[in-house]
């Protein structure tokens, strides 16, 4: 990292196009959204104008029972799916970290749920849980068609279904992040532990887990942020239903913004979600990310 000062200009040139894209299509829209959230705008009623109303949209959001419900659903989804994904991710990482014949195939197999388009996965689970043609019913009840359950018609089952679909799809990604942490632990440390007398479980508990903390934190954070933003799954599988049992916050925002045309309120919802995620990200950058930046500037 010892470049002469003249290269600073070149450096900025190199970064410029990326920054431009980000500025135009990401930062500016975010700012614009925030400004919009301070107005009352109904797309279908242009003659009402677009008055500035300050933070009253946010006040309304605070008291909106539908929004509350959406937050609760989202929170529940985040906690449940993230926890399950992390646990499964650790399991997957431990398995694909070992050396065995055909490991490449197993890794590819485990990656496939991640690679499948979310809409495809959503359709797939929708079909699997179908009340007449679904595999779930076939496996559980076989020929007894009368016992078949309409999974997606029950609020709790539907919620469980989107959690299941998300966990299926992204556990392997969580696994990869954990795997990265596993790969950093030198093999010698395990050898030393074996000689010191640790059983497999002791090695896992006393050595692997503590040393995995940073990777687990990273996985936890990435997955939490992604879980907060879940949309595709809900759109295809349940459309937020039955009722609003699976209406996650981003879906509520979508409906408000694009289906109902309530731009002011819709953007308010979106900004609130963003703020929640931002707080999480800042927390992450503070704790783990600062180490990253130290390495980069070395």
């Amino acid at each position: 990292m010892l470049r002469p000062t003249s290269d600073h200009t070149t450096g900025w040139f190199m970064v410029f196009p990326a920054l431009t894209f980000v500025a135009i299509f990401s930062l500016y829209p975010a700012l614009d959204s925030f400004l919009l959230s301070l107005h009352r705008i109904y797309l279908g009623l242009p003659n009402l104008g677009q008055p500035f109303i300050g933070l009253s949209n946010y006040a309304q959001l605070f008291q909106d029972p539908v929004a509350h419900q959406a937050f609760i659903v989202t929170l529940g989804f985040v906690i449940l799916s993230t926890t399950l994904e992390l646990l499964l991710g650790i399991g997957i990482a431990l398995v694909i970290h070992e050396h065995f014949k055909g490991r490449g195939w197993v890794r590819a197999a485990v990656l496939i749920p991640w690679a499948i388009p979310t809409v495809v996965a959503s359709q797939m689970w929708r079909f699997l849980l179908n009340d007449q043609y679904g595999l779930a019913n076939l496996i559980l009840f076989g020929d007894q068609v009368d016992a078949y359950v309409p999974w997606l018609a029950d609020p709790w089952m539907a919620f469980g279904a989107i959690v299941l679909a998300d966990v299926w799809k992204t556990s392997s990604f969580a696994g990869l992040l954990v795997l990265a942490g596993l790969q950093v632990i030198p093999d010698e440390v395990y050898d030393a532990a074996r000689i010191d007398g640790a059983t497999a479980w002791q090695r896992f508990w006393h050595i692997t887990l503590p040393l995995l903390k940073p990777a687990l934190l990273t996985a936890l954070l990435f997955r939490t942020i992604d879980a907060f933003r879940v949309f595709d799954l809900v759109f295809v599988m349940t459309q937020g239903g039955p009722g609003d049992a699976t209406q996650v916050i981003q879906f509520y925002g979508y409906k408000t913004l694009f289906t109902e045309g309530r731009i002011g309120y819709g953007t308010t919802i979106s900004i609130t979600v963003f703020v929640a995620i931002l707080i999480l990200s800042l927390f992450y950058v503070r704790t783990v990310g600062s180490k990253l930046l130290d390495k980069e500037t070395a």
Partner: protein
Amino acid sequence: MTNPFSERILLTLGIFFAVLGSLFPFLWFVLTSLKSQIQVEAIPPTWWPDGSVEFYCSALIDHDLFNYIWNSLIVASATTVIALVIATPAAYALARIRLQGKVWVFGGLLCVAMFPQIVIAGPVWQILERIGGLNTHWGLVLPYVTLTLPLAVWILATFFQELPLELEEAAQIDGCTAWQALYKVMLPLAAPGLFTAAILTFIYAWNEFFFALLILTDPVKQTLPVGIALFQGEFTMPWGEIAAASVIATLPLIVLVLLFQRGIISGLSAGAVKG
């Protein structure tokens, strides 16, 4: 006396369940796609398919699947190329050149990765409307590039960091400018990183749904995810066709994963290690 028997069993069970859990649901979909219409409508459902390809034909011809595939191909390829062209110099600069305010650049990229789609959806829509990009492929590519930049820059920056400093120092002594050092020395060596970034970008663009739904309203222009999400039959859900379309949509990705699982894994986990 190395790996006790019990550990071996645990590993085998782990492998079994991991593979089974990952593949089984999708395999069911594949089986479904090969059934005949009667089989699909059978209640209770049957296990083994007749091996009929009628759904594939129907999906491709009646539901115009080729069109969707073609659109996805265009959009995903364009996104990948453009994103890489922009991300590579940026990643190099961030990895190797002492820039002030680098922290802000990283922060900015991180932010972009964190935004919920919906926060930027409306204004992006407005921008595209103003420049006439609505319902066009290039209009979709613009936000796609923006969304894939963070990951691409991240992966490439990590790769560049791994390369030994001496190489560039030698290039400097040999008289190269920063751009020349990048193109002649670093790029060839970072090829695996480029590859991985390209694959991940392609997969992202291929699978993206939210913006595709928003921006492409004409079915002629729509990409695969939109097509599959909005698959409607005349009277009932055409599950057979959906299954067939899904298999077709996923096949290229499965091939990519099979061929490049090692690269994908190292690319994704390399970024995570530094974090």
